[in-house]
């Protein structure tokens, strides 16, 4: 986060210089009041932060509590008798569909979508930025519009198509559906990043004796790394978290993805095992949370860059 310092900074710099000669006491009193305000804002920030993080904490807390405490009369605000039993039940319990195959399916689908989306989007974004041809504008416009079509509306026809292609309950079937879902956004985003690298840079390298492909590879490609990271993050999140299409396409217990597997904890006829369910949720959430904390700075950049007038 290399963002400019916040609002009040300039006033602190100018005010004391103006006031000091006349009244030497004022700056100190003012700084004391300012410090009180800062403490107030700090306390508020801590409370807001806790409110947002609480559900995540509660998930972790419950996942480590033994069942008799979870459904006991008292509230346990922290895991005072920690146990790993819930994780054991979630991963190896015999009643529901198994965890390991679901993890395997999720990993395969995510890997497939991530690699395919980045490759296809990369070459497509080159086509629409470094070439001028008829139909270019129409293509860019259509990927912008396609992003607005809700997957919720398409579920019936997508289901029937995957069904008639004999691809229900297969990694490839779900993978191509996700790929089509993420491609418009990834092409659009990468296009913005490639556009941000001036062609003149490549041309300068070519004057120095590089061939065009080599100039692109040596000069432009390294500058696209942030763009590839943000599109990769998007594809990863989409494939790992998606629920509706997976619910429709991966119906057999042995081919479920993790989100669909999580839902099998709730059965109409039985009381929910909240401890095991929270342990399962932790397992699904961990990779995403870690990933988010690693790449957080890049997450909002795309929308803001160039959007502020001035």
């Amino acid at each position, binding site marked *: 986060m290399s963002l400019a310092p*916040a609002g009040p900074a300039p006033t602190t710099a100018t005010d004391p210089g103006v006031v000091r000669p006349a009244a030497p006491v004022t700056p100190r009193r003012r700084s004391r009041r300012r410090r009180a305000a800062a403490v107030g804002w700090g306390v508020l920030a801590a409370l807001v932060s806790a409110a947002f993080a609480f559900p995540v904490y509660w998930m972790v807390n419950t996942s480590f509590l033994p069942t008799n405490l979870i459904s006991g009369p008292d509230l346990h605000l922290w895991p005072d008798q920690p146990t790993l039993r819930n994780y054991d039940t979630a991963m190896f319990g015999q009643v529901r569909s198994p965890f390991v195959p679901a993890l395997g399916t999720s990993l395969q689908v995510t890997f497939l979508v991530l690699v395919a989306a980045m490759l296809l989007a990369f070459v*497509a974004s080159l086509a629409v930025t470094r070439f001028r*041809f008829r139909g270019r504008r129409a293509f860019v416009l259509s990927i912008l519009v396609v992003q607005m079509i*809700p997957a919720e509306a398409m579920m*019936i*026809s997508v289901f029937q198509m995957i069904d008639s292609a004999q691809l229900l309950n297969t990694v490839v079937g779900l993978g191509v559906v996700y790929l089509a879902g993420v491609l418009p956004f990834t092409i659009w985003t990468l296009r913005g990043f490639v556009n941000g690298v001036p062609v003149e840079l490549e041309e300068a390298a070519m004057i120095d004796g590089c061939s065009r492909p080599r100039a692109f590879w040596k000069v432009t490609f390294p500058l696209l790394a942030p763009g590839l990271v943000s599109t990769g993050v998007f594809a990863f999140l989409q494939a790992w978290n998606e629920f509706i299409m997976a619910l429709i396409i991966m119906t057999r217990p042995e081919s479920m993805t993790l989100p669909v597997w999580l839902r099998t904890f709730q059965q109409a006829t039985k009381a929910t095992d909240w401890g095991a369910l929270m342990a399962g949720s932790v397992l699904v959430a961990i990779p995403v949370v870690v990933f988010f904390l690693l790449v957080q700075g890049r997450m909002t*950049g795309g929308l803001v860059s160039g959007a502020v007038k001035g």
Partner: protein
Amino acid sequence: MSTSTLPAAPPGAPAPRATRAITPARLLPWLFLAPSLAVLAAITGYPLVRMLWLSVHEYERAQLLGVPARFVGLDNYTATLTDARFWTVTARSFAFMVVCVVLTITLGTLVALLLMKLGKAMRLVLSVGLLLAWAMPPLAAMLVWGWMFDSQYGVVNHLLTRLGSTSWMGHSWLIDPASFFAVATLVVVWGAIPFVAFTLYAGFTQVPGEVIEAAQLDGASARQRFFGVQVPYVRSIYVVLIVLSMIWDLKVFTQVFVLQGIGGIKSETSTLGVYIYEMGMAQGHYGAASAIAVIFTVLMLVISAYYVRATVKEEEL
């Protein structure tokens, strides 16, 4: 300038721009686009056509098993548009969307302003809290909230009982549609605020300090500075955030679907996405559900038209 117009550029490698080159190079961009075009045509284009086709045919479970589908013209559409349930679901979806968008944008702005007020350390503390909420996979988040609002052992009922004199133990939040949607709104807004707050914060920090200072010297109050200087500067960000929030909240599926699974009454709490799933996937009225899906798609395109037009203008396509 060195001309690199090789007669046989290797396919897959970037070649000179088409404006300068002749025939083989003219095919190159299409070669680059081909894989993406193929995927989008097959997995997005075809189902779109299929959705339109289904919406004008009688298509039920029997047709799935091989009975030929009968062309019925606009019957599915008239049936949908004269069905009171459809209008109830649509009105409910819009009401839910409006409440969620207003809350998300208002609270997101407040959190962004709070981020501006903080020093480095506390800003990190707040950012981590927001990031944790943002990073939670929607389904896992939904299940956690369901557990927190559980009628028997949920932490919310525990705390409410402890705070007040009346016992909340056993109180069901999901049976009553009003409190069902209160919970759904809470979950959706909780999950949406981090993105809005971070984006607005990034926008606010780009407003030049001199402009705010000048306004301050002219005697503008904090309120006037916010509405008169900061908001106009990030106006385009607000437009994008509002349109995106409208789209996301109108097509809300997972949250409502999971809460219904935990204990809501389907007929009184379905939103458009869930309704299409119910009609189509669950009950097998594929034709009728496709008509609803077409109407839903048109609605979404209309809402996003402004955003698309603004983007096209800004990007100079």
